[in-house]
């Protein structure tokens, strides 16, 4: 294949630029990994770029993290929330998106508007809290799953994806006697796989990163998801309150190590999964967006 000179130059610079952008994004990650095996005292003294572990390399940080039993229960809870949560998210979003995508739905416009309304206005923190309390969900993992089971923006993406499928396909299925469920599960869902993958990713990352609801609704720390455990450990390293001003040998250094090791440990699963979903990613959003 013959390519013009200009094209080649463009590709070269484009690649360099993209590599640079990638490096800028990756460096913080690299920094954290290197820092997590560095000698903490040397690290605290260290200024400038971190290319190689400073001081005597150590795995103490990882040892301390793995000895922390909250980390394990955190992982377990997060996976529990992730599994159950995704089941609810995907099912409800698909059903909701399907209904709103029907052209002959009674009151479609007002219904859609009502749904979109929730995207811009919410009751606020205290009403939500009271609601959860009155539903009897306090101190239960359901409080982290049910309230956000459908995210409006994802619902809209889903709806748009369904609407992008030519109507003739669903019509044909209906002529053959298919009902709503058959149309949805046999015709539409297989056609919007890419969007589904995006949904899984969006919801999944959302569950993975969320800690706030857990911090206000949960009372037992055995139920804490990983991110909340992580947050508590990280905050501990920064506490400067009054009497806690009783200082202790080793702590700041140990905390520094734990901090970096924990970030690595908690990020690894998502980093592993992400590249595999990546190929659906761009396609999926585009499909939703173009005909939105």
């Amino acid at each position, binding site marked *: 294949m013959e390519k013009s000179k200009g094209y080649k130059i463009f590709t070269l610079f484009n690649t360099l630029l993209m590599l640079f952008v990638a490096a800028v*994004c990756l460096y913080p990650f690299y920094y954290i990994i290197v820092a997590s095996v560095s000698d903490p*005292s040397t690290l605290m003294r260290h200024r400038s770029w971190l290319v190689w572990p400073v001081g005597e390399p150590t795995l103490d940080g990882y040892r301390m993290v793995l000895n922390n039993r909250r980390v394990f229960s955190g992982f377990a809870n997060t996976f529990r929330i992730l599994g159950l949560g995704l089941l609810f998210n995907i099912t409800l979003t698909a059903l909701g998106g399907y209904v709103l995508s029907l052209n002959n739905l009674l009151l479609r416009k007002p219904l859609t508007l009502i749904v979109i309304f929730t995207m811009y206005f919410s009751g606020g923190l205290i009403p939500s809290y009271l609601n959860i309390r009155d539903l009897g969900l306090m101190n239960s993992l359901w409080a982290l799953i049910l309230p956000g089971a459908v995210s409006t923006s994802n619902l809209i993406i889903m709806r748009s994806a369904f609407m992008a499928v030519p109507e003739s396909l669903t019509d044909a299925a209906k002529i053959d006697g298919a009902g709503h469920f058959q149309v949805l599960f046999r015709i539409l869902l297989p056609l919007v796989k890419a969007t589904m993958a995006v949904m899984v990713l969006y919801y999944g990352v959302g569950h993975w990163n969320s800690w706030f609801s857990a911090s206000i609704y949960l009372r037992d720390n055995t139920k804490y998801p990983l991110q909340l455990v992580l947050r508590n450990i990280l905050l501990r390293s920064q506490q400067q309150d*009054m*009497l806690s001003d009783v200082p202790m040998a*080793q702590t*700041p250094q140990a905390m520094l190590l734990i901090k970096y090791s924990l970030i690595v440990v908690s990020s690894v699963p998502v980093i592993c999964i*992400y590249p595999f979903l990546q190929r659906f990613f761009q396609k999926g959003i585009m499909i939703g967006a173009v005909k939105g």
Partner: protein
Amino acid sequence: MNKRIVSIALAAAMTSALFLSGCGSDSGSTTATTAPPPQTTAAGKTESAAAETTAQTEDTQTAAGISYPVEGSPTISWGLLRKSQWSDRYDSFTDLPLGKALQERTGYTIEAVHVDNNQAMNLMIASGDLPDIFTYQLMNQYNGKEAQAVKDGIIMGMTPEFLQENAPDYWAYLEANEDVKRALLTNDGEIVAFAFVREPGASRSVQTLMVRDDWCEELGMELPETADEFYAMLKGFKEQLGVEIPLALPIGHLQGALNNGFLTQPFGVLSRDKYQVDGKVIFGYMQPEYKDVLAWLNKLYEEGLMDPNFTTMDNDTLTAYMLSGDSGATAGPIGSMLGTYLTTNKDIEDYSLAPIKPLVANKGDRPKFGHMQNLNVGPNAYITMNCKDPAAAARFLNYGYTDEGKKLYNSGIEGVTYNIVDGQPVLTDLVTNNPDGLTTTQVLAEYTLSWDGGPFEAKESKYELPEQQEAFKMNGDTDAALYKMPETVIADEDSDEYARLASEINTYRDETEIKFIRGEMSLDQFDEYLATLDRMGGSRLLEIEQNALDVYNSK
């Protein structure tokens, strides 16, 4: 192949971006919560009160009418923040050795209601679903402080009679410490809390200036006491030792140092913040003399003695500067800064840091002002309006002010965490050199409340390192008690106006101050700055503070 690598790299880059945005909000909120500026409001005249009280407490303690454990094994629900100092090893306060000992000794069965953080606690308070008692810092977290919480029907205001009857030890303490009592009294004469109080006379200064004394020695200088000496020292660091940034003071620490009067006193202003002289409120930053403080800082800035990026410097950078020898002076907490630096660099031969007193006008002067925590910093314990049997709750909370309770909350269990040596509790190896590798705080968190606070009388906190002990003593040795604003309560009708004025004026002050220091605004414009402050309502702000102080003094 190449394409593939690039696309994997891009994918990873995107992931990291996604992650970082997630982490970003976290770290943002942390910096907000840990932003240093220590509040400068507290009561005065402790020193004088201290002498009388030690004598009094002796005999009132014995007059206590409650014997523990109490009869009838009552149950009490206790709301507390779950603290990460122990939460990785225990599920609940009642599983801690402290929780167990407390239940055994008081005869109460505790039902711990744990919440994760302040926000969750605020929501619990807002929802009205409160346990019998809870420990918290309502003075910082509740709009209008504790007095308002009593009015709003959240916590119980306790009459003196109620306390005399149900919490005699606590009442005796309050009787003996007029200042503490006054800080806890509502305008209706009710006590709002079982407060976290300190032994009379205990130092309340946990911030200090610190300098590299080994460098001073090298330069043949004494530790600086005045602004000129301090300047000469920084100059020496820079010119003779080639130190990059002699004074490392990120903006938060700088403001803290100014509020604590560390750098303002040589110029005739006790503090940047508000203070009081003979019952008259003064805002340091509104004084004409404050110009000289800014001029001095501007000089440091212009001559490169201060970090040119002091407005954006973060704590990690500060730590790196101080540890690597790129800086030789800073100000901040005795524990998390002075202690951290010294322990981190303990293996480095030529590294030493020494605390110094707040700077004064003339060598040998006694500092008039310095850092001083409020008398009532909390967390305090409150009896809620949901409590079915307030008398029983009060009897439970009274325990922390008895001799036995004081020992438990402060030092833990005798023979386990401490032994009495020469009449003083000395921590055992379990605490100071833990076999499982736990830090002192982590162990203390299992056995005591001394590391945190709560309903008890706390002993003076003990720092480990000699430098820290010196800093603690040195900074406590000022006349700050005479000048510090007590914990006044802004009158109801003024509170909205006060909040608005204070926020606008403080923002303007902070911004302009930086401009003056960086020379973006000439100090000739200082009068304009004062005029603007006045136009923005500075005198009204002063008036509101003054009224609050007058009310406080007449309580």
